[in-house]
């Protein structure tokens, strides 16, 4: 079912951040050499959730279009948990890259859909997207290093 409400979009954002944090925590346990980076990512995810919820709870009022600002299909952003068995480091990194691109897309689309309607909320999505985009070259560098 598509998501049209701001509360639905916030919940999806929280779900994506929590899921991807779990994924990075798992990677940090498996690959000691890059543990610090993965744990940093996981911690940042928690901060993003706080930042977005703060924006939402601070600005949500009846003057804004809380129930009509989005048209998101959650299936488009579903994170696939990578297969744990038989997967190598590069497989995980590729999954991480795909996951980051998907989450980035979510924030960009959500910000664009709500930009005239939800005041601080799309701004917080954009800010998080800007931060997350920095992860992609870092993950690509790890992938290159492993080749």
């Amino acid at each position: 079912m598509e998501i049209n409400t701001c509360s639905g979009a916030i919940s999806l954002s929280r779900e994506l951040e929590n899921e991807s944090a779990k994924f990075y925590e798992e990677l940090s346990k498996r690959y000691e050499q890059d543990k610090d980076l993965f744990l940093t990512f996981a911690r940042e995810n928690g901060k993003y959730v706080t930042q977005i919820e703060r924006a939402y709870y601070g600005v949500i009022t009846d003057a804004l279009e809380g129930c009509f600002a989005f048209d998101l299909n959650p299936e488009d952003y579903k994170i696939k948990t990578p297969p744990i068995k038989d997967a190598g480091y590069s497989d995980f990194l590729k999954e991480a890259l795909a996951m980051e691109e998907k989450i980035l897309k979510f924030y960009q689309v959500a910000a664009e859909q709500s930009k005239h309607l939800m005041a601080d909320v799309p701004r917080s999505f954009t800010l998080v997207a800007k931060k997350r985009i920095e992860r992609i070259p870092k993950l690509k560098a790890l992938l290159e290093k492993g080749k």
Partner: protein
Amino acid sequence: MALLEEPIKGIKEVKNYINGEWVDTKGKIMDVVNPATGKVIGKCPISTKEEIHAAVEAAQAAFPDWRRTTPLARSRILFRFKGLLEENFEELSRIQTMEHGKTIDESRGETRRGIENVEVSCGIPTLMQGYYSEDIATGIDEWVIPSPLGVFGIIGPFNFPFMIPLWSAPYAVATGNCVVIKPSSEVPLSQWRLAELAEEAGFPPGVWNVVNGGRTVVDGMLEHKDIVGITFVGSTPTGRDVIYRKCGETGKRVIAQCGAKNFMVIMPDCNVKATIPALMTSFFGNAGQRCLAGANLLVVGEDNKFYNGFMEEVAAMSSRIKMGYGLDEAIQMGPVRDKEKRDKIMGYIEIGIKEGAKLRLDGRKPKVDGGCPETCFVGPTVFENVTPEMRIGSEEIFGPVMSVFRAKTLEEAVEICNASPFGNGHAIFTQNGRSAREFQYSVTSGNVGINIGIVAPVAIFPFSGMKDSFFGILHTQGREAVRFFTESKVIIQRWF
């Protein structure tokens, strides 16, 4: 999406809060029903005249000490209160959804707007400062002190059970008055919880009182000599013919915020993509049960191509609105408060058909998600070819019904708006600054929106209203509320 957890389990037996104590009524008890599920979630006391009098007397007794409590000390209690409201934000929001039926986004919006008023009233040490002139004549100084008056009655409506009493109560107590709040008996749970948090914040006994009930409580407030003023939000007939009139007869201050029939004026140069969701919020948000809701859509211009395309989009988005229990985050529109209100709205839809308006979207058989009983649901309804003479275009329906008018020019549109006896929250959607300026200048409306469908002022501004939408002089919220809850004492001083 999964349902959020309900904060009220079983049936909550609401009590009155008088003089710092929770007391049972000797009157009748009424069921509080969740309109989305049909389940009884609470019991509301229908208090007696003796009980409202006891609350007023307790408030009057608390007044001298509270008045002498310094503004800074009062403000500290309000800061604690604000903190508690933030801590309990989610619970307070979910209670509103349970007792009223609105969606969780709408309830959170209501909670935020309520808290904003507490936040603004925390600034009372500076907000209620007077002013001073030295040497108005040689050796003579003069100053004015805004002083509290005593006990105020606050009468809340059913459509914003949490927020609306907070348009008044925080300013009243911040300025040193005491309050007796009467919530709507249909939705008493939000004010019960709010009073618990007020108690926890540390308001002394008698400063903040809640007496539940109906007309007996209202009459008890209006007749009591120690009530110095009333704030009321509700229908125009009650506000004008009962509250305003009676306050005039008994010399009480009054703010009566009443009914509406708001026009949303669409210029052909509007940003259609952003305007359509704003109209959905305006007409169908809170299931149309708000005095700032759009009721009449007025499309300007003779360009049929624009009109047809625009209405196509309005009808399409309206028809896709998901209805159900507001604790499901996917839901965009909840039920109306009860079956009687639903029947009244259904009656207006029948009237519109008989009057000859074109029923573009029929909400009489709504599709409701999540297995909720249909008892209190009305779907989004759109009528076209509506004229000002029709009852659906002129009377307040208070439900999710959009009546569409057309006007050739902006001037004609303003004339149509101004011919309405109401003047609460008209709005224009345009990209043209000149049209916007002309509209805001010419339209007789207390709150005016420019590309805003729900013209709800934030707490630092007054919630205004004109014509049959408002009776009184000063308004709730912000500086006007501070003036309403204080009277000017002027001192002229000369030393021999």
